[in-house]
């Protein structure tokens, strides 16, 4: 009997982790509905939805959630403003709406945003992108924020979607890049008609092609709480006006400085190579990451950066439109190859319409899996029996099996069963159990909180950086973890996915390994190595000091 039980247990354990996510948004109290436009979606501004930011705003060690909301449009040219919402993580699986107390509500037509400690005071600030002037909320350190937009000079008035803080000039102050989409007006929104045909079948909203693109903005941080518009001098006007959505910064060519990649809807994506002299050169086309494998542009909404094949180089994944595949660009060492089909990403992503994108280790087995939040922009597809498309869509989970991805959505638990109008998403450890959870902002619906309850997953670590000599959070720093002969890399970055902000802490899955070596390459090139750190911890690494293991919560 005992032997039989042992064999049974052995069989169970050797069958691998059982990936499971459960949607706990309601029980956690994340119930705000993020509205965006009207029900029929006659104008494109009503369709692009909102992002979500994860940040520990009160430095209590628990990750909080900030949802951005737009304005609800009603018949008769009526508007119904809805505030952005800040939820404080209580640390017990529930959240508390602290928007009013914190002073981060807004009745603007919100889109998304990014977080960073722009003034290096040790507190995370929030930058909100809007259709209309953007907002910079400076963290006061007492649970409240102040509107610092005008003082900082970062109130870009255009329709902004993705944003990212990064330090390309390595002066220790986070600069800000804002991706802007289309020039439009309220009059155009009210008068909009669905005049275009989608796949020859249903009449849908116009754009983006044919509509005037809006120029992006690069704000250089002056180090005194203010920014200057350095878009032109830095070289960011080249490739601008191309319907920018997603924005990420990363070192694509391993030359030690951070570059910038932006996803442009229906236009070639842009890759800006940091020349190291405060200017950038747009090299997207020849890099292989501007177009798909056939030289075609794609819808291009959300982006993430990660080393999925373990070769020590950061690869890219970009979500795209329906009836097209999401692109996985493998980094070949300064150039990219569209390997979407070869890696199995293309086929399961062809039907849905994607927004948020995440490389993350779902089951902590030391490789990066993929998550996409999905939702269509044309409600009209539901009315046509020939198209086989739906407005509400399920999110997608693809598991990395040795560099090839398999669609695990159907078996990933109840959290993946309900189709929604998904838009921006963010990944982070919200329940402090050292695995990554996901928050999805759903358009015109309550959000989704996908709590990772994977059974039998490997050990993991979380690492947060503090850099008193650079940007406080260590933006642009590269972390390398080696355990059991396997090396993984991560970077610390702001923004990403679609108009959202992930947990700043780097997560590493370690499989069965109980210890790891950690190498940090700070943005200025200085390296530090910490050997034989125990797995199963959260570490805070202050530059020059030994890693501090936080007590389990």
């Amino acid at each position, binding site marked *: 009997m005992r032997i039989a039980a042992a064999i049974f247990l052995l069989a169970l354990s050797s069958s691998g982790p059982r990936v499971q996510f459960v949607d706990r948004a309601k029980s956690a109290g994340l119930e705000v509905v993020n509205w965006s436009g009207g029900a029929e979606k006659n104008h494109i501004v009503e369709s692009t939805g909102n992002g979500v930011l994860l940040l520990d705003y009160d430095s209590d060690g628990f990750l909080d959630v900030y949802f951005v909301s737009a304005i609800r449009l009603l018949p008769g040219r009526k508007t119904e403003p809805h505030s952005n919402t800040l939820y404080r993580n209580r640390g017990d699986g529930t959240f508390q709406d602290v928007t009013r107390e914190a002073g981060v509500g807004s009745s603007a037509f919100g889109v998304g945003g990014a977080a960073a400690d722009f003034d290096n005071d040790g507190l995370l600030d929030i930058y909100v992108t809007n259709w209309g002037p953007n907002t910079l909320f400076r963290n006061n350190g007492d649970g409240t924020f102040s509107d610092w937009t005008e003082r900082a000079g970062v109130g870009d008035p255009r329709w902004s979607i993705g944003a990212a803080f990064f330090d390309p000039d390595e002066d220790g102050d986070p600069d800000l890049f804002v991706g802007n989409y289309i020039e439009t007006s309220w009059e155009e929104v009210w008068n909009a008609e669905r005049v275009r045909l989608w796949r020859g079948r249903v009449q849908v909203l116009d754009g983006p092609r*044919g509509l005037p693109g809006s120029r992006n903005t690069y704000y250089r941080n002056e180090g005194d709480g203010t920014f200057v518009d350095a878009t032109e001098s830095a070289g960011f006007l080249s490739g601008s006006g191309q319907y920018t959505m997603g924005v990420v910064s990363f070192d694509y060519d391993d030359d030690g400085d951070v570059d910038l990649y932006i996803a442009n809807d229906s236009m070639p994506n842009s890759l800006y190579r940091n020349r190291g002299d405060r200017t950038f050169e747009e090299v997207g*086309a*020849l890099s292989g990451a501007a177009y798909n*494998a056939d*030289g075609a542009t794609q819808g291009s909404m959300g982006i993430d950066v990660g080393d999925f094949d373990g070769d020590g180089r950061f690869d890219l994944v970009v979500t795209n439109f329906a009836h097209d595949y999401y692109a996985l660009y493998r980094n070949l060492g300064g*150039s990219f190859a569209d390997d979407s089909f*070869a890696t199995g990403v293309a*086929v399961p992503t062809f039907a849905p319409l994607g927004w948020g994108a995440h490389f993350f280790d779902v089951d902590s087995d030391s490789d990066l899996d993929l998550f996409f939040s999905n939702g269509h922009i044309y409600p009209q597809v539901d009315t046509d029996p020939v198209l086989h498309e739906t407005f509400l869509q399920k999110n997608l989970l693809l598991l990395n099996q040795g560099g090839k991805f398999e669609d695990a959505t159907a078996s990933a638990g109840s959290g993946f069963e309900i189709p929604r109008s998904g838009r921006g998403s963010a990944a982070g450890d919200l329940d402090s159990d050292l695995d990554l959870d996901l928050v999805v902002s759903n358009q015109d619906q309550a959000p989704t909180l996908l709590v990772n309850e994977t059974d039998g997953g490997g050990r993991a670590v979380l690492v947060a950086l503090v850099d008193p000599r650079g940007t406080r959070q260590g933006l642009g720093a590269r972390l390398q973890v080696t355990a059991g002969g396997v090396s993984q890399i991560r970077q610390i970055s702001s923004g990403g996915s679609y108009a959202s902000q992930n947990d700043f802490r780097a997560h590493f899955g370690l499989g069965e390994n109980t210890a790891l070596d950690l190498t940090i390459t700070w943005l200025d090139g200085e390296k530090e190595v910490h050997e034989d750190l125990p797995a199963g911890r959260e570490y805070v690494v202050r530059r020059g000091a030994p890693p501090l293991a936080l007590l389990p919560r």
Partner: protein
Amino acid sequence: MASVLLWLALFVQDPRELGRQALSEGRLDEAETHFQAALASNPPRVFEIHYALGRLYLQKREYARAREAFAACLSRAPRFSPALVGRARASLFLEDVEAAVADLTAARSFPDAPAEAELLANDLELYLSRGADASPGSIQDLASAREYLRVGAVLLSGGETDAGLRSFRVASAIDDQNPIAFLFSKEIGEAPPPLYPTLPAEFRLAREAFERSDLAGAAAALERILERRPSFVPARLLLLETLEGGERSVDALVQYETLAEELPPVFELHARAGRLALRAQAHGLAECHALRALELKPQEPTMLFLLAESQLGAGHAAEAIATCERAIASGAATAPIYFTLGNALHGRMEIASSIAALRKAVELDPQAAEDIASFALSSLTTEEYRSLRSLLEAHVEEHPRNVNTLYGLGVMSLREGELEKARQYLERVREIAPKDVQAHYNLALLHQRAGREDLARESMARFQELRAEEDALWREGHRLSNLRIRAGNAGLEERIEILTELVKSPSEETSADYVLLGEALLAATRLEEARDAFERARSQTARDARALEGLSRVEAALGDDEKSLVYAEAAALLKRRCP
């Protein structure tokens, strides 16, 4: 002198020749005069004149006189077997089967018996056996009276009297000299077609016009023939060729409908009509013809393919898939079937299954790679693509100018890191298709990877030039689309103005734009202009239906109800769907 000249003229113009010429041109009375004159001159080989008179009287349907003439021929030339056949023919028309059998038996006993003897004997056997031993196969030669006789006999023996009658009617119309068709028709109460002695000559002239590409002249001549003898199928078939050659596919489809009503169920007819309907994008009609053809030959692979394609074209992907699966299950799995299956699955967003089907298509026939869009080829680079790659390599050896296959191999090689091979394939594509955007793009990336910066920049620059051209086309299309929207929102006069400008910019939508213009002009009661616009809209595809409906309304407004009805019926035909 004059009488000498007249005598000479008479001597030079042999009345036998004059008679034969008049007979061939259907001038029967004149021919009879000449033959009688020839007889009166007591010429040598007088039996030939009696024979010619016999044939003349057959054409005039004076069967008793015909029999006498053939008898007179035989009395002078008893072994002249054509006369035996002719007399047998006359006997049959006189319903004297016994005499006909005797003459045919005698004719067939001669070693130099004409083929006609055997054929007529077979036809008679068909009649006498009531088709019991006839082959039940479908008609192969749509212009053959004998085929209609055979099928008619089979239908009659199977109790399908109405279909049998149609068959005999057509047989008589094609060859009113065949007595068997006459006998069968008479049995079921059908009179022979009216005399039309000039028909062969007129048809010959129509064919000559077609052969010298005078399509309008040929069509006019054939339409005149069909007015007099509607069931003369050879004329209708030639008219179809004329219309199809002149890209008047809708008119041809109307002719097919008429033909289908006249003929018994014929596989070949529905197959041809279905293929034409598919080319004209009248998918519902194509589907109908495919279904009717499949009733006659249930698993015929080309019709299963046609059915699936027409279902897919009509947007009925589920039905198309079912048809393809039926074809595959019945063993009719061809590359075109798998190709259609792949496309149908793709339309339903079943991408993995779509790729599997397209891969199968290429495995069965690497030529299918020519038809598979770049997306599908790219998608073929999954785990098992290596076996497919060797197929494509073999294919390109035999078809070195197949651009899609070359491109696919180039991309596969690039992904495998075989840069030199990739370069060769992609440069070949660029040679054959200098404006191939994808080839330029991948060459640029390839050169970049190989460290050849200058070549990379050059290829990328060319790629971007070509993309700019595509973008310019897109922008122009977008501009025209905006004009259409403006027109839709404008008042009538402004709408006419905008559409008049719009049609000056040719695009894929010009035909539809002409329809919109026609409708606007019709609303403004500018009828002649409306008619002109609808005529210009007629691009010989299913889109013609709206133009035809417009023309129907114009003609009705102008008081020509007959023309209006013709247009309305043609429009309805294009929009037909099978239940």
